[in-house]
């Protein structure tokens, strides 16, 4: 296993809540710059694993090395090197677009000038310069999600975790969102994403599928379709998770 090639390395990771085993000996790795789809049914243990990988929760046993740091020993260093966004919570509704950028940039210790420059850059790219002083709550969900993604990668993290970033987003914006993901990954950022849209599973370079706390399958979408002798990722998912 060469260091440098891998940005996430998970070995025999177990997480228990009392008698319940939420993560049952997970073993997998994610390469630098990869778009990795982390799939599974509701309750399969995805959120638990993401919390561990982002330094918010400690494993019961096993190890996870994220961006070069052991999540158990150096959770704060892990947090500094990752970005995170979810559908449920990402930006503050009662702050403007610009204030959200400034707030998150500040949290990550970025200099004012740098925040300003990067905010301008991102808003230009999203064609949203005219909305920088608008309150977040006035902005439609799809646009909000694109902003949230930009905020999550503002501090140039090595990895960005996206937890169902496109739920309820219209089909055009959903695709624009994925173009942002591609662009970011081609710049070297690793993208770790969960989704219930199985067409989006196809957009990932590799995916894993969890069921009842275990990773039941991992590989490129093409490999998994081949292995299960089906035509779409939807069918792969149903074969594994049902």
């Amino acid at each position, binding site marked *: 296993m060469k260091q440098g090639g891998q940005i996430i390395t998970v070995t025999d990771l177990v997480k228990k809540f009392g008698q319940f085993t939420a993560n049952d000996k997970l073993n997998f790795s994610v390469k630098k710059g990869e778009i990795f789809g982390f799939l599974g049914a509701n309750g399969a243990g995805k959120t638990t694993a993401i919390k561990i990988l982002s330094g918010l929760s400690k494993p019961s046993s096993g190890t996870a090395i994220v961006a070069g740091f052991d999540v158990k020993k150096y959770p704060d260093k892990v947090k500094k090197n990752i970005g995170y966004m979810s559908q449920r919570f990402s930006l503050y509704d009662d702050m403007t677009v610009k204030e959200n950028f400034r707030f998150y940039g500040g949290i990550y210790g970025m200099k004012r000038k740098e925040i300003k420059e990067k905010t301008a850059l991102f808003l230009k790219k999203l064609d949203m310069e005219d909305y920088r002083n608008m309150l977040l709550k006035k902005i439609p969900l799809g646009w909000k999600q694109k902003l949230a993604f930009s905020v999550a990668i503002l501090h140039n993290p090595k990895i960005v975790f996206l937890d169902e970033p496109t*739920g309820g987003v219209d*089909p055009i*914006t959903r695709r624009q969102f994925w173009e942002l993901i591609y662009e970011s990954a081609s710049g070297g950022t690793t993208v770790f994403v969960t989704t219930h849209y199985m067409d989006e599973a196809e957009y990932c370079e590799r995916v894993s599928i969890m069921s009842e706390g275990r990773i039941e399958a991992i590989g490129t979408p093409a490999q998994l379709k081949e292995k299960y002798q089906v035509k779409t990722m939807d069918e792969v998912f149903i074969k594994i998770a049902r």
Partner: protein
Amino acid sequence: MSVPVHIHNISKSYEKVEALKDINLEIKAGELFGFIGPDGAGKTSLFRILTGLILPRSGTASVGGLDVVNDFKKIRQITGYMPGRFSLYHDLTVAENLDFYASIFKTSLKENYDLIKDIYIQIEPFRKRKAGDLSGGMKQKLALSCALIHRPELLILDEPTTGVDAVSRKEFWELLNKMQQSGITILVSTPYMDEAALCNRVALMQNGKLLATDTPKNITKRYQGQIFALHTNKMHSLVIDLENTAAAAQVYRFGDSVHITSTSGNDESFRQIITASLEEKGHSAIQMIAQQAVIEDCFLALMDKNQTL
């Protein structure tokens, strides 16, 4: 027993935002009707008007001949409503939630057991568990049981499958088809375009407007042009490379391929133009497979691409 739903010129606004713009729809008794559209389409506002929770700014609507403004109390007696966000009491158990909803409608689980039996047996092992401690799929089944407990003639489900995994979504639709057979009119909203195919008829909705209303089959039949599913050795740059090709319309990623549409009528020359242009940009192993449109293709074609805030 099931009831028809009529919607005439319904509009609704919140301050300056027009949530619904002159909506007209006739839903037949016993129909499984889908409202397909993203967040902000107006689906929830329409459902709230039908259940008498908010008033339309203009227009009229009725459920089984009952007016949504004047007869809302009667409508509620015959309607089961499963809102998107909240419908269960998290600090009550499964059994308590069911009892609570049953008592509101002066009925009991026993009285209408045959209707909810299929769903109820799946949650029965957890009947003493608090609703807040259930998994997402189980919560959804309990909420559906609660919405059905008074044997409604109209069932309204607001995004019941949002955030739900592909397997649970399939199971939920199987349940809905069963419900429909017991003679209930069902209105269901969803942001998942693939679920449209499971409805009798659908309305595609965006920004408070109906983009199309018909059977899923008729909507896809009306798609203008021929769709090709494209594969090459460079899938990442394919969309951008195609967007710079004048002949290609409607360029969108669809799972492991990219869909493009030929509108010229001459599919063979289209094929040649696209292939040549992509080869020039360094693509090889180019595959173009002619394909029927799906609902998402139609939605993308109908969507107002210049949407503004």
